[in-house]
């Protein structure tokens, strides 16, 4: 195994307000970690900082991914290094077909890593295969990125992108929000299909339901900008029963 991601004493300000206040977290290769926590505890901030969004000011601490100082890398280099964020609110891009977008992304990453790019035929073959697994019809390849997609379609499209880009660190930011039970199952199965000893994951969620499908290795409670409790899946069950009030340090 070995540590894939190391976050140490992370302090992050957004608009001069301190949101993450000394967050530390280690994730092993192949580990799926769930992060739960009350609204406003900093879960989405963590996701954004990991992916490299602007406007997040790291005042203290560091993030190392596969030995690299992640905070020094622009978002595109992080992606090429294997970081993938499934957005809580996937962004609409009118005028850009989904297949063009995914192919451009995949080949940009490959170019960045010095690998051979996929031609149109190779790409289409792969995309068809992955779309089928996610029970997505192919006509969405030609639709503009996320434009006119339902909530479920958007999340499914995120998992589709993830399966095409084959990251080594997947961050799922409330990927279960807005999904009905059937869509949730398809999305979770899609994620499970990608799991192997190389893929580490951070699953941000409010609900036990997604964790039932994903069976994370560890569960971390984030409150007031820090990890206040770490445990196995029994922690999620305790949470479901007693709420954050029932967990030491989480209120």
């Amino acid at each position, binding site marked *: 195994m070995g540590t894939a991601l190391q976050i140490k004493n992370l302090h992050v300000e957004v608009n001069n307000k301190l949101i993450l206040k000394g967050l530390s977290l280690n994730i092993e290769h192949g580990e799926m970690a769930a992060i739960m926590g009350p609204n406003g505890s900093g879960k989405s901030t963590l996701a954004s900082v990991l992916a490299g*969004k*602007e406007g997040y000011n790291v005042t203290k601490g560091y993030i190392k991914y596969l030995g690299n100082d992640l905070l020094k890398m622009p978002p595109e280099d992080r992606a090429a290094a294997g970081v993938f964020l499934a957005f809580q609110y996937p962004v609409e891009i009118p005028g850009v077909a989904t297949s063009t977008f995914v192919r451009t*992304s995949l080949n*940009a990453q490959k170019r960045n890593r010095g690998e051979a790019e996929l031609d149109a035929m190779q790409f289409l073959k792969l995309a068809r295969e992955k779309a089928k697994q996610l029970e997505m019809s192919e006509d969405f390849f030609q639709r503009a990125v996320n434009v006119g997609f339902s909530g479920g379609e958007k999340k499914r499209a995120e998992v589709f992108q993830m399966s095409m880009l084959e990251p080594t660190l997947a961050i799922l930011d409330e990927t279960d929000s807005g999904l009905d039970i059937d869509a949730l199952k398809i999305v979770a199965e899609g994620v499970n299909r990608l799991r192997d000893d190389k893929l580490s994951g951070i699953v941000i969620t409010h609900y036990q339901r997604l964790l039932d499908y994903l069976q994370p290795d560890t569960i971390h409670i984030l409150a007031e900008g820090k990890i206040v409790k770490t445990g196995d899946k029994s922690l999620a069950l305790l949470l479901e029963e007693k709420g954050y009030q029932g967990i030491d340090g989480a209120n």
Partner: protein
Amino acid sequence: MKNLQHKYYEYYNSNKGFFPGIDINWLNDLREKAIDQFQKDGFPDKSVEEWNNFPYKDLTNNYFEPLSDNQAEIDLNLIEEKDPNCTIRLIFFNGQIVNIEYNQLPKGVEVNSLTYFLKNNPNFLKDKISSANKYAEERLSNIIDSRPQSIVAVNTAFHKEGAVIHIKKNVKMPGYIELMHIGEYNKNTMQHMRSVVYLEEGADCEILENIVHDNVSDLVFTSNVTDVHVSDDASLSLHRFIRGSTNQIHINNIHGSLHENSNFLSTSIINSLGQVRAENRVNLLGENSSSTIDILILGSQNAVIEGLTRVEHSKKNTKSDQKARIVLGENSKASFQGKIRVNQNSDGTLANMSSKSLLLSDKARVNSKPELEILADDVRCSHGVTVGNLSEEQLFYLRSRGISEVEAKKILVNSFGNIILDKLSDNLIERAKKIMLGYYNE
């Protein structure tokens, strides 16, 4: 400026014998009336509403020679080859026709230069070249304001050449016709082209007016005015690609009359570094006629580019759509003025207009002005205007997938223009995309 007006007037009167068609009475009258009108109105200044976005200082502060000895020969081998989808190409160099290319002229299609028609079939052109005032604005007060049209008056008085396209009844023209304009004009000269497009009943035709960027950046003033007649059940696409260098002033007018059940589509892509104004004035004169006018402005450096559309609904159940997309970088400026006028009794009108601008620099400026004048009751009209910068959210989304910042910006700029390009026919879409890509790589 009064002096300049007078100088042009004097010039016309001492040199009118040198303009083609002097022996054709109706054309002579048209020219005379036009120069009189220009003598009265002069170039439009800031007091003319449609002209008050940006000053045309270079135009109004300089004298441009109407008949100069511009070079008239060009090495045709230097010109890019005719596009395989293009059926007929006319090449104009410095305002003179230098070549007409086609493999076989389709039956029922007549295409040639204006001077050819004036010599061989002048009666065909009678009433098809309109007076400068035909498309002038009738204000709500019933007063006709001729001043916005004074460039058309200059064109009417001084034009020397142009293209004539005549498509006969029920003829569907395969491919498209390209009117290519190349210029390497002498400094401080002007050149006016007057073209006529006439589609008989049921005819169908696609045309590209391609104004090519040249490498000379001397101050010159060019204008192209095209009179368009689309008969019942006919369908015309008339597109413009307009490029130009730093000191070039180019004013381009399309004047269209649309009859029953006819369709008109016009897409203009303007990517000049100089000062350009592209107008579309369209009258929906027949029931169920429809007009779609799209403009894509790509501004950079110190370019000043204006788009003006004016669609007049004069019969029942007519449709129109106007769309402007404006991308501006560096110090460039642009305006879009779009007007929908629905005359009395034109019930069942459906008219939409939208203008969106994307500013890539802090110094870029855009003015967007939608106007509706509705005199009928049963009408559906909409208009919308937005101005913004590149979306940080979209940029981050693309970058988070591995796409570099430069590439991500390029994708977003392209996608912004794609809504205009996507409506172009298969014949032209690749050429249009090339202009778009060229713009961002500049």
